[in-house]
């Protein structure tokens, strides 16, 4: 695909379009490079079993990063996703183990479908709280979601007094067995969680590129005032992105607790940082207005493969942390170079028109 585009450049512009294309595809190129490197350097890297494990790891981060991408495109940030992951895991665990105590000596138990639905609603509710704080009460996104980060984490800890909900195999009597399938099951040899990721990823990419809502998300991040004067319902757009981010976090909460068949209240700590890193690595601009869902997913894969590959090579986890940091910074530096080049090419095209 690179060679096709290389034939296109118009005379007089030199190799810039090719360079621009390379820069645009940089996350993808980084993914291939990381992949090729570990294929040589890490034993067993190319085995199917390893792919399945790695893709499961990546999926968790990718869900959060997709939600985070929308939030960052609007110019916001969502720090609460890691805590929502923990809380939603606990909600699912609680519903399976304890049901809902109606206070009349009976407890109400739900079937699997209802449990998933309620857990997702809890995630969306927390996202909505973020959104309302930010749009109606004018709290800065960083602060609002920092607050809900603590609240959700605290609630998760309170729910079990800090203990783990073990053995979430469910009860066939209530139709809540089979919870483990979400994390451990597979279809056509591909884990269920990856299928869900594909669905969510495609859905999010569709929203971003082919719906007015998606366009509005970019417009709000690019220039909120101009968007508002163009008839974009800015508050509604922002509310949506935080709710969507909460929704993605709830999925991760469900998947993790299903994989472990247990729910621990500390699950998801610092996940928000990995999600931000994946989004940024994929080309999302922290100042808003720019970012692609596809880029974010590739970014999540780069980070995931990097850390898993380094583990397999036996590199110290301390070094892994350093390397991850270097990769993120390098990504942003290259991103800036791309922006400059892109602006210059656009100006040249305009200049070629005779102003």
């Amino acid at each position, binding site marked *: 695909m690179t060679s096709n585009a290389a034939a296109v450049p118009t005379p*007089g*512009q030199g190799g810039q379009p090719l360079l621009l294309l390379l820069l645009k595809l940089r996350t993808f190129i980084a993914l291939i490079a990381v992949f090729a490197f570990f294929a040589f350097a890490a034993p067993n890297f190319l085995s199917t079993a390893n792919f399945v494990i790695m893709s499961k790891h990546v999926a968790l981060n990718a869900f959060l990063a997709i939600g985070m991408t929308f939030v960052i495109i609007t110019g916001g940030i969502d720090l609460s996703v890691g805590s929502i992951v923990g809380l939603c895991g606990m909600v699912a665990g609680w519903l399976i183990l304890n049901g809902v105590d109606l206070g009349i000596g009976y407890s109400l138990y739900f079937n699997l479908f209802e449990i998933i639905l309620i857990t997702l609603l809890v995630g969306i509710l927390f996202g909505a709280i973020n959104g309302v704080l930010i749009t109606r009460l004018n709290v800065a996104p960083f602060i609002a979601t920092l607050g809900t980060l603590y609240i959700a984490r605290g609630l998760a800890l309170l729910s079990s007094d800090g203990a783990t909900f073990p053995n979430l195999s469910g009860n066939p009597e209530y139709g809540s067995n089979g919870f483990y399938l979400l994390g451990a099951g597979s279809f056509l040899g591909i884990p269920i969680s990856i299928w869900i990721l594909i669905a969510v990823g495609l859905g999010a990419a569709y929203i971003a*590129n*082919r*719906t*007015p*809502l*998606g*366009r*509005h998300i*970019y*417009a709000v991040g*690019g*220039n909120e*005032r*101009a*968007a*508002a*004067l*163009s*008839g*974009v*319902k800015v508050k509604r757009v922002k509310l949506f992105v935080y709710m969507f981010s909460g929704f993605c976090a709830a999925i991760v909460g469900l998947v993790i607790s299903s994989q472990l068949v247990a729910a621990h209240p500390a699950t998801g700590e610092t996940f928000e940082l990995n999600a931000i890193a994946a989004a940024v690595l994929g080309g999302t601009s922290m100042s808003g*207005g*720019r970012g692609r869902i596809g880029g974010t997913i590739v970014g999540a894969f780069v980070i995931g493969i990097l850390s898993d590959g380094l583990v397999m090579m036996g590199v110290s986890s301390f070094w892994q942390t350093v390397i991850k940091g270097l990769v993120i910074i390098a990504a942003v530096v290259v991103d800036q170079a791309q922006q400059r080049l*892109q*602006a*210059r090419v*656009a*100006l*040249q*095209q*305009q*200049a*070629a*028109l*005779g*102003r």
Partner: protein
Amino acid sequence: MNAPRHETGLSVRGATKVYPGTLALDAVDFDVHLGAVNVLVGENGAGKSTLMKVIAGVEQLTSGEILVDGTSVTFADTRAAARHGIGIVFQELNLFPNMTVAENIFIAREKTRGRVDIDADTQRKAAAELMQRLEHDISPDALVGELRIGEQQIVEIAKALAQDARILIMDEPTSALSAAEVEILFRVIADLKTRGVGIVYISHRLEELIRIGDYITVLRDGRITGSRGMGGVDVSWIVRNMIGEASKDFAKVEAHDFGREMFRAEDICLPAKSGGLAVDHVSLSLRAGEIVGIYGLMGAGRSEFFECIMAQHPHATGTFHVDGEVLDEPDVAGRIDRGLALIPEDRKAEGLVQIMAIRENMSLSSLKTFTSGFHLSLRRERDCVLSFVRDLAIKIASPENPVSSLSGGNQQKVVIGKALMTQPKVLLMDEPSRGIDVGAKAEVFRTMRRLAAEGLGILFVTSDLEEVMSLSDRIIVMSNGRITGEFDQADASEEAIVAASAVGHAPTSHDEIDKGENRT
């Protein structure tokens, strides 16, 4: 050619500036005469701003040289240029909205005690003196972000004055000023001239140039096409040199009858933050095919009135009618649906999303048109955008390029395109010609005429007397939030309009400024 009655303070010889892909300046010779106003004129993209950036040390020449008092110099940065006494008022406002007027005026040149401690009192006093010199009552402690654009421009000018520059470059200083403020600025310029300051003055307002210029230089496509003393220069000479043979005269009136009433405002009031009313019982009506110009001084409440129409002020009272029916939609989207479209005053901050593509900017208000269910048809969107690009003669390389790559005039056309794509019945244009060149201006005006002929009602705000006179079917004058005059095109006179715009203003214009300052 110029009789050397003014000493030459700075000359540029053989200046060539190449940007990747463009030749911005092509062997330009330019002299700045001290104690005189050196006018520089040309269409957008002709190279005026580049030349000024070179002189101010923002950009460096590819070849050629700059001579100060006969010796060759190079300016590595603006500080180097400032050391040679060169100051510049940029076209785009370079102010810090989060800082006070005084802090802005002395930014990077803070008056200090012992180089560390900022001497705020001295700064404040000096700022107040500058404001007095500019005959404005803007408080040195006011936050710049709370000032109107016109007032910010005054601050920008004060900032340049504070440098005691020997050569002062003014890039379109009057683009946001009203007639009265322009007069004040001209008095300040006259005063600077007597002090021996050489002024380089760039403007698109040709009448203005002829009035205050001593020397004129015309640029076209990076080359000098005319340079002489101002004696005997008239508008047609300038225009001929600016755009070559194809002279464009704007605002040819296409006679047509007006249709039914499209828009009516009844008794609109908007409380000002400081008490009183920013918009004071304004009622007006607009018929299909009619162009109504609203003229007034800065702070007359014109932009606020537009903002009320577009639902930006929940506290506003009064009723609007569109096409005979009450307008009760509470948000912008609803009002756009009802056939209103606003072209805001500040293109960069309110009109465009700079990092988005031209296509995405143009369709932003009308995405619904291309959507079935929630699916957006990119093909239909693109086709529609391209047809508007053609209609409005917008010069673009590709609709996918960011809108920031366009010149000011083309950007304005994109904003107009965005408004038209919503298929409005009433077009609200706030300073539609601000910061665009003569050619683009003429095209914008022709477009307005054409749209009116097609049955649109157009309400536009301007501070340019000539513009309001030549473009409007009817002229409404606002002052202090009230309508103080209404004229048909036939019986409007410049004197009457100016007089109406000053109603309620003391001769020293203190009221006006108090008011301007207190507005949000």
